């Protein structure tokens, strides 16, 4: 940092005031985060118990019960989404990094970023018209498709970022040994970037695991264990939403418990992924 020159009067006062104003902006920005963390932890901890993880939801009026089906439902949905989103995301990202320097690459990169910004509820409506209407019922498959569509552009862009970090000498060494381009790409480049790509995938999973809007009318919800993928399926987020807006205190307690579980998982995944990936990403950035 460069030392500020010695100047007097109003100019120095302005400088000080603005410095403090920007610093207080940081404090203002952290206040809601702190408040959310504290409330979710306190309220959630007092509501969380073993039943939450092992019991099915109880009907209205009966106390207790848990969200075991919603937890397994969320995992199922994430798995389904990964089947769709990961291949498209990783291979698409590989294309962008290895071949996508022309105008087609530009357009794909641009569309991926735009798709990233499309409201998740619109993705839900799209999948509703695409999957739910022809199947004539809400289903786990529809939920998985919706989340998969959200996952693909995210994974694509992080994969691109990390594959670009693979040094060219590795590719050249492999090609010099007479290994075809596609094997080089899959076995050398992809393997070298693997840790980073997994990081991107973890972030994407954390993100879609917290999504609710696209599930409301694709996966819908379900109060029981689900055994089939063409049936409605429960998820932690939709259950949390339904419980939060319901008028029952016991459901509110469960909503806080669900929030604590969901938030802990999301934050842990995010912190872990960022700690692993940060030095890599920093390496390529100017300054």
């Amino acid at each position, binding site marked *: 940092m460069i030392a500020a020159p010695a100047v007097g009067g109003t*100019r120095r006062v302005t400088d000080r005031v603005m410095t403090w104003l920007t610093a207080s902006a940081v404090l203002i920005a952290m206040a809601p985060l702190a408040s959310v963390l504290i409330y979710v932890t306190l309220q959630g901890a007092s509501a969380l118990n073993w039943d939450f993880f092992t019991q099915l939801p109880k009907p209205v009026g009966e106390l207790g019960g848990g969200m075991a089906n919603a937890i397994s439902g969320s995992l199922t949905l994430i798995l389904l989404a990964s089947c769709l989103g990961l291949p498209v995301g990783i291979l698409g990202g590989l294309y962008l990094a290895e071949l996508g320097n022309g105008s087609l690459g530009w357009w794909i990169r641009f569309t991926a970023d735009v798709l990233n910004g499309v409201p998740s509820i619109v993705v839900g409506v799209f999948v509703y018209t695409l999957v739910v209407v022809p199947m004539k019922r809400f289903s786990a498959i529809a939920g998985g498709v919706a989340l998969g569509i959200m996952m693909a552009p995210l994974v694509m862009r992080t994969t691109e970022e990390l594959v670009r970090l693979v040094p060219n000498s590795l590719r050249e060494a492999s090609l010099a040994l007479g290994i075809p381009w596609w094997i080089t790409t899959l076995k050398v480049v992809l393997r070298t970037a693997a840790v980073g790509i997994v990081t991107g995938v973890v972030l994407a999973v954390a993100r879609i695991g917290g999504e609710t809007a696209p599930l409301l009318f694709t996966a819908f919800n379900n109060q029981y264990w689900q055994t089939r993928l063409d049936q409605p399926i429960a998820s932690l987020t939709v259950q949390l939403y339904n419980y939060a807006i319901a008028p029952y205190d016991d459901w509110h307690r469960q909503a806080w418990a669900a929030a604590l579980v969901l938030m802990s998982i999301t934050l842990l995944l995010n912190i872990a992924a960022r700690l692993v990936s940060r030095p890599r990403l920093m390496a390529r950035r100017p300054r």
Partner: protein
Amino acid sequence: MLTVFGFSVVVLVGWMMIQLLVTAMPAIQRFGPAFLWTSRWDPVHNVFGALTFAYGTVASSLLALVLAVPVSLGVAIFLAEIAPVGVSTVLSFVIELLASIPSVILGLWGIFVMAPFLRKVVEPALQGVLGWLPLFSGPMYGIGLLAGGMILAIMLLPIVSSVSREVLKAVPLSQREAAYALGATRWEVIRTAVLPYARTGIIGAVILGLGRALGETLAVTMVIGNRPQIATSVFQPAYTIAAALANEFSEATTGIYISALIELAAVLFVISLIVNAIARWLVWRVGATPTAMSGA
């Protein structure tokens, strides 16, 4: 082969557009462009107009920008220009955590913590000082347009500030050195040399935030009150397009009702495409690389 996978996102966006328009066709044909500026939304009589939802979406998003942009800019300036590198790294990391909290959890917090706080503390204070303005008049519920705007502001903050920070960091060091050489104080360097250079990118960051605000669904649905009306006071409930979709979609029974809801989704989709495209273009022009991790 890889090209196919990359190109699939382009196909997907085109497909979404066509699919939404085709399924919305019955409503588009029946109500015409007037759908956008009539305010009656009456599922019982199959009369649908989007104005109240469009108003709620635009009003809550603008309110969110008014609240979030000054703070985000302050954060970005502090992190990029003022704080030492170590402090800046840790703080940006913490603020970005805010972006990773699921919308539905913010909504839960909004209902039980933020809304009561607004009702008991913020809204009486606002009314006490500025109550003569229609904007701050009327009964105070806690939930309403102000709560919707606040929760959106909280969600925008990490996005706008992290993209702005990247943009500020992309400003060449020579810009700063030149201003320092002329004897400017640090704030004068920021104001005269750094911010003008980064202006396009910062506008891009704000528009990116706007795109996010327009489509944000659950947290807003939970605190905005969900009453389709155009009120003068920010204390009154409102309704957004995204919230209408979330609440009404699974209950829609008649074909024309569903079609009208899909038309709402199509409107939201087109707006978000335009807004995001402009934002990306502006941010890219400055040369900062928005990544899926830090940007969106």
